[in-house]
């Protein structure tokens, strides 16, 4: 049975003390997205990746706390419910999971982190990929990679794959293949295993 994500009282604003907390535990800071974008642009790839992993780790931690012992039995819908709920509380957009064959694709819609022109994965999508990677790493404890595939309008897609598959995907994307073609080739490579 899918357990719905309950957001009641998740974000608290203590106006007397001037503090915002998530679940009454950790303190949060409400920042303008432009300021955060300037900050991310000034960071290197490693620093941006660490910044994203830090955010995702916190998200994964709360999901693990919510799911508890049922973590390995939950289905995709319930995982999307809780993981997407946590990202929504942070104001990072709406999360969904797509399966292209056996390839898993995570898409985020209406993310405020758009640092480029939106035609190709930019630093904003790199930040989101690091965030998703940190969260899934915390939740599943698997060695995985998250590669930005595409951005179409307000939808950013990320492929969840292994380390070796990451190299292929990046190579196909460098060749200019459409993300659909990339996912098709990924499935073909996986079938030969």
């Amino acid at each position: 049975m899918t357990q719905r994500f309950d957001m009641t009282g998740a974000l608290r604003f203590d106006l007397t003390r001037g503090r915002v907390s998530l679940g009454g535990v950790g303190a949060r800071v409400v920042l303008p997205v432009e300021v955060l974008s300037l900050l991310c642009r000034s960071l290197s790839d490693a620093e941006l990746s660490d910044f994203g992993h830090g955010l995702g780790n916190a998200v994964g931690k709360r999901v693990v706390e919510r799911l508890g012992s049922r973590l390995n039995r939950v289905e995709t819908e319930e995982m999307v419910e809780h993981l997407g709920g946590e990202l929504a509380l942070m104001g990072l957009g709406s999360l969904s999971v797509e399966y292209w064959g056996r390839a898993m694709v995570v898409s985020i819609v209406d993310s405020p982190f758009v640092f480029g022109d939106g035609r190709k994965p930019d630093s904003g999508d790199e930040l989101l990929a690091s965030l998703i990677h940190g969260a899934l790493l915390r939740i599943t404890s698997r060695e995985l990679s998250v590669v930005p595939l595409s951005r179409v309008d307000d939808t950013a897609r990320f492929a969840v794959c292994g380390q070796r598959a990451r190299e292929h995907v990046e190579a196909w994307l460098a060749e200019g293949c459409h993300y659909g073609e990339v996912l098709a080739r990924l499935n073909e490579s996986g079938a030969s295993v």
Partner: protein
Amino acid sequence: MSLEQQRIEQLQGLLAKIKRNAAVLLEQRSHRQAVPGVSPSSRVAAGVSPSSHVAAGVSPSSRAGQAALSGAAPTPGVRASQPAQPAASDRPSESRRPTSDRPAQASARPSEPAAEASRALTKRPSQPAPPVVSELDEAPQRLDDELLMTIPPSAAPPAAGDSSEFELPPAPVPGEFVSEPPSDEGEPPPISTRQQRGDDSAHEELEESLGFGADGAEDEEDFSASSPRTPPPESGPQVTIPPKEDKEGETRAAPGTDSPTMEQVGSTIELDEPGSFDLELADGEPRPTPDDTEAQLPPGEYAGTYDASLRPPENVQEELRTHAQAASERVERSSSAPSSPLQSSPAPQVASTPALGARPTEVVARAPSTSSAPAALYDGAAAQAEPRTFIERLDAALRLGTS
């Protein structure tokens, strides 16, 4: 004698009286022509109006009849102011003109006696008739009323060129409304007759002069008593006809009475009381019961045995043998070779179709499979189970591209 015949006879009697009075009028007029200053035309036409013509049912061309019947004119005195127009009585349209424009003409009368006569003939209900009017100016009131009763309103005045012959009014149609004479007591008479009633004094004198007094009253009474009249709808309760005696002296019951007459009752024949008769039944065999109607089958002496009488006769044995042999030969020919029409047919599928009754020479059928092994084998189909949980699907995705 029917009602119509009675009325016709009465009318004929009245007509005879009118003729007699007209003769008297003509005689008196001939005497008056000797009097100076009096126009004979004005005297004749005095008080005559088309309405009186219609009411009287007499031809207006007959001046004697006009004079006799002119007393009940609704517009009296109109013609009296026009003495110089002897033919005015033949123009009914002029007589209907109002009299208000006539005094100027009347004042221009050339002679005093004529003017006097015109005043006398201008009768109004409020003015009594002057004594100078002779009896010739007065028309019998009762005669006019009676004729009003009998003449239908559709009667038109005859042509002016008719002679002094009087025409009988048509008999009233049965069921047609016939006005009753005005009664002395009770409801007032109609307006047309009320105006005439105002001139009773003048009319009475005219009646006396015409000899229509007591006799006319008696005739009227006889006529009214003998002729049943249909009362108008507004005249109150209807008059029932009293029962009359037939020739045989039997009294017929009037409609609506309760007691039937002897004719209606007739003679009653009483029938005898029905007696009780016993039905005679024929003495014989008792009636069969339903069980007895079932026919009994003959004993089974032929059951399981061959009846030699059912064997075909000897003379047809050879014929049956020949027929069976011909049938077998026909079957062999049809099975060995296709028939000629099928051979000439260009369609190959039709030529290859065996004829009916042909048997296949050899049938090769596939032996049914006795092994229980599956007919098809799928390589790699049951290798992996479909991932269900998120972790399983993530592991499946992570295995992609690892080769």
